[in-house]
């Protein structure tokens, strides 16, 4: 048991802080502060800076540009980036498909995709869910039929995050309709510019265009774009899902959210005319929230420690997902509560901003949309109900 940071680790923290302070793109920071929707070029600007520093893919193997950071260094990195609200690069490329490629891909696939993904030349999206296959992902129906050196793919995917920007997608498709449902699935990489691929926006209740439907109509996919063996796609999918879950707790971001919440509570007044931060009811909620975050943080540290001892992320990751998403949701709920009357106006509808007649404080503008948006976190990546099933089965053996 040792929670002290070594002098080397503290030096690393200083280096990270200095890097973020001097190199984080100013324009991106300004857009974030103004609550504007982020564009593809904003992510690219940040990715370029990270690439130059050599820190774009800390989790990758050394030969492909990994940093070989210790779990503690990774933890420091995620804390410091969260503190300054640095953008998180979309996970689909660097965190999700990349581990699949270096674990299951052919040498040709690694050569073709890994460096390009690292450089930001390829933006990936994930073609998993279908209208009829959400929690029951293995029931997916998108069909791929082998014809010579190609698969002909037909079907529909949904909830495809930021597919409107994607160059490539990784898709789960059914290659054997007669096998048991998990055993007839393959993992294909599809060029989103292929004829027959259509992306249609889904607008969520906060008014954002973040997710899409993807229609596949006789899309021709070369067989060398299949990762791992035919009909073994479920093995790949499970591997990828466990990677998706391990980063999902978002603890550093939630801590940052609490800091922001505390700042708001120092600006707002309570019913008794003092600052909201002095209000016993509100303070209690803040304390409750922080205690919950601490419990989750140390749960994650234990899990990291066992990972660095050589055990991969196991079904315990489901616990991090459940608690982590509940905490993210709670943070946004308390922000909405803290801003009082000004949680109601819809910032997108304000039109030209008039400084003479402002509408509420800036920090209130995104309060309700964020609360609505993060309802998704307990639904995506395997709903929290599914995560409880996983724990019941895999951890408790029920």
């Amino acid at each position: 048991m040792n929670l002290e940071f070594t002098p080397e680790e503290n030096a690393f923290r200083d280096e990270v802080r200095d890097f973020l302070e001097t190199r984080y793109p100013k324009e991106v920071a300004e857009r974030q502060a103004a609550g504007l929707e982020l564009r593809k070029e904003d992510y690219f600007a940040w990715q370029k800076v990270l690439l130059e520093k050599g820190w774009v893919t800390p989790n990758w193997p050394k030969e492909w540009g990994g940093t070989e950071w210790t779990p503690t260094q990774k933890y420091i990195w995620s804390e410091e980036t969260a503190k300054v609200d640095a953008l998180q690069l979309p996970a689909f490329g660097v965190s999700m498909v990349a581990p699949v490629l270096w674990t299951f891909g052919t040498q040709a696939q690694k050569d073709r995709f890994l460096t390009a993904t690292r450089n930001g030349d390829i933006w990936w999206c994930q073609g998993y869910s279908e209208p009829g296959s959400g929690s029951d992902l293995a029931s997916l129906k998108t069909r791929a039929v082998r014809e010579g050196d190609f698969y002909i793919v037909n079907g529909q995917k949904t909830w495809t995050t930021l597919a409107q920007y994607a160059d490539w997608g990784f898709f789960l498709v059914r290659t054997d309709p007669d096998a048991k449902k998990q055993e007839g699935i393959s993992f294909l990489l599809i060029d989103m510019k292929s004829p027959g691929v259509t992306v249609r926006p889904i607008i969520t209740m906060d008014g954002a265009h973040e997710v899409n439907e993807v229609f596949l109509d006789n899309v021709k996919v070369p067989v060398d774009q299949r990762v791992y063996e035919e009909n073994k796609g479920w093995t790949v999918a499970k591997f990828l899902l466990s990677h998706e879950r391990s980063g999902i707790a978002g603890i550093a971001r939630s801590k940052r959210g609490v800091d922001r919440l505390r700042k708001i509570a120092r600006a707002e007044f309570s019913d008794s005319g003092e600052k909201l931060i002095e209000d016993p009811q509100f303070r209690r909620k803040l304390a409750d929230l922080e205690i919950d975050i601490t419990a989750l943080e140390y749960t994650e540290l234990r899990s990291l420690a066992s990972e660095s001892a050589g055990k991969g992320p196991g079904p315990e990751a489901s616990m991090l997902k459940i608690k982590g998403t509940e905490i993210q949701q709670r943070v946004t709920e308390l922000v909405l509560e803290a801003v009082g009357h000004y949680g109601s106006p819809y910032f997108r509808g304000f039109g030209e901003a008039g400084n003479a007649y402002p509408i509420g404080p800036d920090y209130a503008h995104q309060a309700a949309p964020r609360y609505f948006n993060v309802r998704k976190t307990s639904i995506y990546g395997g709903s929290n109900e599914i995560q409880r099933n996983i724990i019941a089965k895999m951890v408790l053996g029920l």
Partner: protein
Amino acid sequence: MDFNFTEEQTMLRDTVASWLSDNYGFEARWAAIKAGGGEKPGAWQAYAEELGILGAGFSEDLGGLGGGVTEHMIVMEEFGKALALEDYLGAAVVAGSFIRHAGWNGAAALAEGIIAGTAKPAFAYAEAQARYTWHDLKTTARKDGDAYVLNGHKGVVMGGPTATHFIVTARTSGGQRDRAGVAVFLVDKESKGLVTRDYPNIDGPSASEVFFENVSVPASNLIADNAIDLVERVIDEATVASLAEACGVLQKMHEQTLDYTKTRKQFGQPLASFQALQHRMVDMYIAWQQAVSMTYMATIKVTEDDAATRAKAVSAAKVQVARALKFVGENAIQLHGGMGMTEEMPVSHYFKRGTLLRNLFGGEDKHIVRYENLSIGKDA
């Protein structure tokens, strides 16, 4: 013991429900929101002429239906089920309540206008620093001959963009947080020095920021002075009406979740067949039913003579209903899965409305403290 409605009240409910179901479908409402305005064109005129509900809370002397909080509860519950966008709460409930209790000379003229649909007052009570303490006022009204001169800023005035008047709380004397010196004015929207900035709210209806810069208001438009007790009584009655709206929203969210989970299949069976989800839906049902019970309780008690009894009942109901809105709303989205996140599913619209209703006129924290204080005989 009688929780039944009179024949007239049942007729009122049927009339409103049937008009809304014919004219306020989900698509029509959504189209109205997307078009801007925050209201369904023509709806207000229909409330005035076809339905005659704008005078539900006015006495028969004033040309109304002679009803009160129960009639408002009935209308608002139906509005909640349909997610009607128009500001019935401000223009009919709040204005009706002030007229009922204030004993103000201008009442007859205002009531006539409201009933005909030509006058539409919006309630300008909220100030950013005050949170939910209604006597915390920076807006001032200075006596100047036969007039008062108003200065200040009221935030998030629901129904502001289409209002003809504002009912404004302002301080005629005393310090910012004194209970004495709180007055209520009827202010014509066209008054010189009055500026509005309009915007949509996240759940669809519109609101305004209202800025007063030396706005001169005739003394005859002073509805009441030293009137914080009246203001609190009116807001309590408005709160009960908003709880009724919440009950309508809760009912719909619960129904939609049941319907969805019965038809949506995963793992070869309807979601509704999983016991973990059944229990969740039972808890949602219980929360909704308790909210209805508390809304009825508050509707009955808000007419009592004793101010503390009224206030305690309303705060108790508000706490229960706010909790139900959170539990039922969040779980309704969760059980709809990704579909619940989309703007094309009605449930997301009910969830947004319900979320804003949680904090309207103060959320759980304000009301639980008020309840506690009243229970031990302290000032609320």
